[in-house]
């Protein structure tokens, strides 16, 4: 029983990271109708920035805040320079753009910081949390930071004018422009926020997977699985999907014979395919109905 509880809690902790990645993916998907394949690499690059800042002697939380600001600005810059010109281009052009971005960020990170694995610090330590063997302080910290982030985002979207404008722009851009919303900047803002959320995921998972340019590959696939499971049209669903995928991953790895660490990734992919076949809109998404 203790093993079971332990796996559930560990699942919630990694699920928190998947939830962040899924949320970042969904935010961009809502804004421009495309999946950002480079979301993980953007998060990885941000994590390297924070590591570099700490190497220069800036304390953890200072580096954390600076990295958030850098990622926000970087996300906006990527949208303005690369994806705003592609806004009316066909889907495949956009996909090529995302893959190019993926490769460029990955290689540039390797060029600057090389591909050797680095230790990344945790501000929470890795002792047993509250004297319990079930969960470590770092895992508890991951859950805590994610929950705070989600609450802040909820209040932003529900109770601020810009949040409402962003929701409106994602819902019906034509009407949003008509009431005076600059939809193009709302998209850029969505990119900035997605990049910042992704950077939080990167900085929280880095002590677990270690810092290197390919660290986010697996995490992003779990993030995609979470987003698809929860529904690509529902930020709330993406978060729930993240936690569910995290728990599912851990339980499958523990209890299904033959599924060790090597087979965990195919499980995420199998989950994506299953959801797309059985319930394409996901658990909380709206089915997309087009008038013809």
């Amino acid at each position: 029983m203790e093993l079971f509880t332990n796996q559930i809690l560990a699942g919630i902790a990694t699920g928190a990271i998947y939830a962040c990645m899924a949320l970042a993916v969904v935010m961009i998907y809502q804004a421009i109708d495309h999946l950002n394949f480079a979301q993980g690499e953007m998060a990885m690059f941000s994590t390297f920035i924070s590591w570099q800042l700490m190497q220069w002697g800036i304390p953890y939380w200072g580096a954390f805040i600076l990295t958030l600001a850098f990622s926000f600005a970087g996300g906006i810059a990527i949208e303005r320079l690369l994806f705003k010109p592609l806004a009316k281009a066909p889907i495949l052009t956009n996909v090529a753009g995302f893959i190019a971005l993926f490769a460029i960020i990955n290689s540039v990170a390797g060029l600057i910081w090389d591909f050797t694995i680095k230790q990344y610090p945790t501000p929470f330590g890795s002792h047993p949390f509250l004297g319990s063997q079930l969960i470590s302080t770092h895992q508890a910290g991951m859950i805590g930071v994610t929950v705070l982030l989600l609450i802040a985002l909820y209040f932003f979207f529900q109770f601020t004018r810009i949040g409402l404008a962003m929701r409106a722009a994602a819902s019906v851009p034509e009407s949003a422009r008509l009431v005076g919303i600059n939809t193009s900047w709302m998209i850029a803002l969505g990119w900035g926020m997605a990049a910042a959320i992704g950077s939080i995921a990167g900085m929280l998972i880095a002590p677990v997977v270690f810092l290197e340019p390919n660290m986010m590959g697996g995490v992003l696939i779990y993030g995609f699985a979470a987003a698809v499971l929860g529904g690509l049209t529902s930020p709330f669903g993406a978060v729930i999907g993240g936690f569910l995928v995290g728990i599912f991953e851990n339980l499958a790895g523990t209890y299904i014979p033959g599924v060790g660490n090597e087979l965990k990734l195919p499980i995420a992919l199998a989950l994506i395919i299953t959801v797309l076949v059985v319930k394409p809109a996901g658990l909380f998404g709206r089915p997309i109905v087009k008038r013809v």
Partner: protein
Amino acid sequence: MRPANDFARPVRPNGFGRSKMTQAQLAQGKDPLLAVRDVSVVFGGIIALNGVSFDMQQGQILGLIGPNGAGKTTLFNCLSRLYQPSGGDILMEGQSILTRPPHRIAEIGIGRTFQNVALFPNLSVLDNVRVGTHARTNSDIISDSLKLPWVRRGEAELNKRVHEIVSYLDLDDVAHVTVSGLPFGTQKRVELARALAADPKILLLDEPAGGLNHEEVHVLGNLIRRIRDDRNVTVLLVEHHMGLVMSIADHVVALNFGRKLAEGTPAQVQSDPDVIKAYLGSKDQ
């Protein structure tokens, strides 16, 4: 391009001499709120609008009529900057609107509703109306997210305004309901509320009576007149429902095949032989 022979004012492609003319006309009290000047729209080889001109005076309800395909909606989409005319100009209080991006039309006082309703389906009625106030607010993202004092003050005023409009259009009971679940007639009222929230000088209504029954059309007619009187809003009404147009419009413009057929009071337009021919056909054809 066809010369705008119905009007004394010539087409001026640039702003030269405009302010002088405007002041002279202000003195006479005849300056139009909105002036459509020789507007043409071409889609590929199809001429959807061909040199259409008319004026809207402050406080008017202007009915824009015409058979299907006459170019009513095309003209409408030019006014709300969804289409770019290939020729001519549209002046709001003497200033061309054609140089403005679509999201900066609301702030000069032009609001509209759509034929098939274009609300934000997953937002509540209140949020839909609140979005409508966007053009009337200005705060940056940081002070907005942190809810700094002046943002709070502004928001309190806006909320009062939003609630007032929701009550005005009798939407109190459904204020917190998500729009997608509401009946079509109610959604049309929500869209009207959203347009009013921006405090428009001109309200463009695209077939507001479409999909409504006889009784509802009558109520709508009274509502449009009431909005004009209470809120000092000038209304441009595109409508198929002749009864509605003829009963509430002060001035009617009839279009056919992208050209202006006739213009005048409802009675004048109704008895215009060209208009009758366009709607009913003629013996010679």
